[in-house]
């Protein structure tokens, strides 16, 4: 126990003495949290909308006005020809082209029904889907307007059967993306810092040569590993605390659940990440290799965590892989506890898997650290 104290003291001193690293560990994450949380939104807005009006009547203008009034669309230009519109699409200046045909008004009155051509840039398929929903909504409301206006007394009045759908968005009524993203990005930042620092740690001593000096001392493997883990564990929890404060104060993210439960889970979670880091550190020869491997896993952990894209949509085999992704569980738990107020029973599956990983990874870390070769 006493020996542990000396190792921890030494590690802390080394971390705080490295002036080049301090801002990267303690400032950069929060700048990123603040900036990136604002950027990470699927809330489709400012859609670059343009049109070709071949009709120029009050009817066509009314339609365009509807789009202009919508908060989703940013109505850019009226293109005189299809060719110019297409070229703007290729340029990336517009994403939607609505084409109003010749005799739009006249045909509508005569034929009652007209098809409108809408061209949508669908490279971002999900966004294109949402855009088409918005367009439908606007046109539906336009149809209502003209229906009232053009209805003739002799038009048959049979009302269609209807079902009313009432959406209710629980836990996040306004569909605020920040509520969703801030806890998630916080998780990523805490994970990245702790993984990278622990991943570089032992291999760095290997490269410098100090590890050999440690290996000829009677220090126990577990003492050494725990001594190395502890400072990063404290830093991880510290980062989380400041991050939660930012989430609450700056982003007004609701913290409904039990804070103690969140800390309990996080403290175990960080152990998993540190175990992975030290394991990588023990298995590599140089810091460069350690970093590449940490990077490799980090990118996989991030992109397959369910934070940016839903896990349910992945193919079955990929979903199996995510079972081994600690970030996935952390993101789930953060959201469940913070936003939904889930209790310990609700997060039991995640918690028990995390505890299991913590044992496995730290066991591997201690096992793979060899004082003798």
């Amino acid at each position, binding site marked *: 126990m006493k020996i542990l104290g000396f190792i921890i003291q030494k590690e802390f001193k080394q971390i705080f003495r490295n002036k080049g690293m301090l801002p990267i560990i303690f400032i950069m994450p929060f700048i990123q949290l603040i900036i990136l949380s604002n950027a990470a939104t699927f809330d489709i807005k400012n859609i670059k909308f343009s049109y070709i009006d071949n009709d120029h009547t009050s009817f066509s203008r009314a339609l365009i006005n509807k789009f202009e009034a919508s908060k989703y669309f940013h109505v850019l230009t009226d293109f005189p020809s299809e060719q110019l519109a297409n070229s703007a699409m290729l340029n990336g200046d517009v994403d939607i082209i609505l084409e109003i045909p010749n005799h739009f008004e006249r045909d509508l009155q005569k034929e009652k029904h007209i*098809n409108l051509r809408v061209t949508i840039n669908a490279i971002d398929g999900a966004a294109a889907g949402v855009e088409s929903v918005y367009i439908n909504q606007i046109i539906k409301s336009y149809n209502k307007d003209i229906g009232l206006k053009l209805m003739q007394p002799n038009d048959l009045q049979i009302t269609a059967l209807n079902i009313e759908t009432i959406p209710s968005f629980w836990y996040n009524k306004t569909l605020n993306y920040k509520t969703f993203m801030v806890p998630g990005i916080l998780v990523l930042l805490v994970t990245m810092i702790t993984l990278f620092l622990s991943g570089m740690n032992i291999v760095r001593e290997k490269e410098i040569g100090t590890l050999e000096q440690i290996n000829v001392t009677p220090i126990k493997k577990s003492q050494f590993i725990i001594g190395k883990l502890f400072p990063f564990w404290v830093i991880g929890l510290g980062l989380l605390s400041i991050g939660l404060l930012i989430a609450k104060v700056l982003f007004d993210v609701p913290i409904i659940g039990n804070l103690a439960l969140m800390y309990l889970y996080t403290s175990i979670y960080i152990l998993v990440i540190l175990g992975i880091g030290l394991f990588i550190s023990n298995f590599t020869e140089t810091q460069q290799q350690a970093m590449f491997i940490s990077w490799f896993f980090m990118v996989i952990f991030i992109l397959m965590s369910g934070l940016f894209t839903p896990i349910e949509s992945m193919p079955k085999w990929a979903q199996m892989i995510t079972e081994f992704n600690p970030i996935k569980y952390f993101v789930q738990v953060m959201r469940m506890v913070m936003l939904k107020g889930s209790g310990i029973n609700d997060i039991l599956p995640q918690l028990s898997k995390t505890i299991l990983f913590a044992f496995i990874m730290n066991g591997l870390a201690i096992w793979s650290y060899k004082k003798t070769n």
Partner: protein
Amino acid sequence: MKLFLGFVKKEFYHILRDRRSLFILFGMPIIQILLFGFAITNEINNVNIAIFDHSKDITTHKIIDKISASSYFSLNKLIENEDDIESVFKKGKVKAVLIFERNFNKKLLTNEQPKVQIITDATDPNTANTIYNYINAIIQSYLHEINKDVPVVYQITPQPRMIYNPELKSVFMFVPGVMTVILMLVSAMMTSISITREKELGTMEVLLVSPLKPIQVISGKVIPYVFLSVINAIVIILLSIFIFKMPVQGSLILLGFESVLFIVTALALGILISTISATQQTAMMISLMGLMLPVIILSGFIFPIDSMPLPLQIISNIIPAKWFIIILKAIMLKGVGIIYIWKETLILLGMTLFFVALSTKKYKIRLE
């Protein structure tokens, strides 16, 4: 010049000898592109939903059948009482609960507009919204069927034409993004680390007192990585074409040229990072912590830039990855030539020159 070539050759041997790192350099991007190409999608599929049906009549059954028949949803649970709704959400088992009100069929036939409440777990707002839209669409199509006999009223129908990606595949969106992230980080990381490593080991000074000019030393270290990254890029492009069926509508030569340009930009950024960091550790942390999330989030890889708040749209302009993603999509999917992307190309070129100029200046200051 001969001296320089000799130096470049030495650097090549140096890299090729380290089998482990070489495996990491080539193996990892391939695994990643394969993994992400298949796994990263924001289409929704098999979303678990629960139903709380107060009516249990013919209409609600028909609607439920329609919903379970779609590939978007899988019916996970039938709920029988109010309290269960909260608990299934808290457990995270389902993403949406549909509640049909009492006497659904009767109300429908008597034109009373029966209500179906769609509760979604909006801790993930995107999925929540998409789920609502999809369920709504299914119900609309059901209404359309039962209303077949109602005569048309005055209306226009939009006929959307989804261009460049008619099947709305998310692969088309994400493969260029994954490619960019991989090239950016691998290239920047490799150079920044390999240069700071020499600094840390003290061998940089030996090189700098040699008859080689500093610019030759730096480019000598970078040239091998240009080759490695180009090979990486080629492999990734081939995988995108043959595995993910990404079209290359535009010119392959242009695609190659732009990829090399972007690689050089990333390498130049790596050089810049190496000039401002004293140790490998710092260099790695800057390239990993500083680049990873901004490149993923601010480049348009996953989140549409147009939807971001204005200040962030402005910030996104300094992310080289943003421009490369635009270029990639334009060449591969839109099939445009250089006249449509000269602006983006010039920006990347400008950034590269800026990074190089800044690093040269920093090196000079240190040497004096």
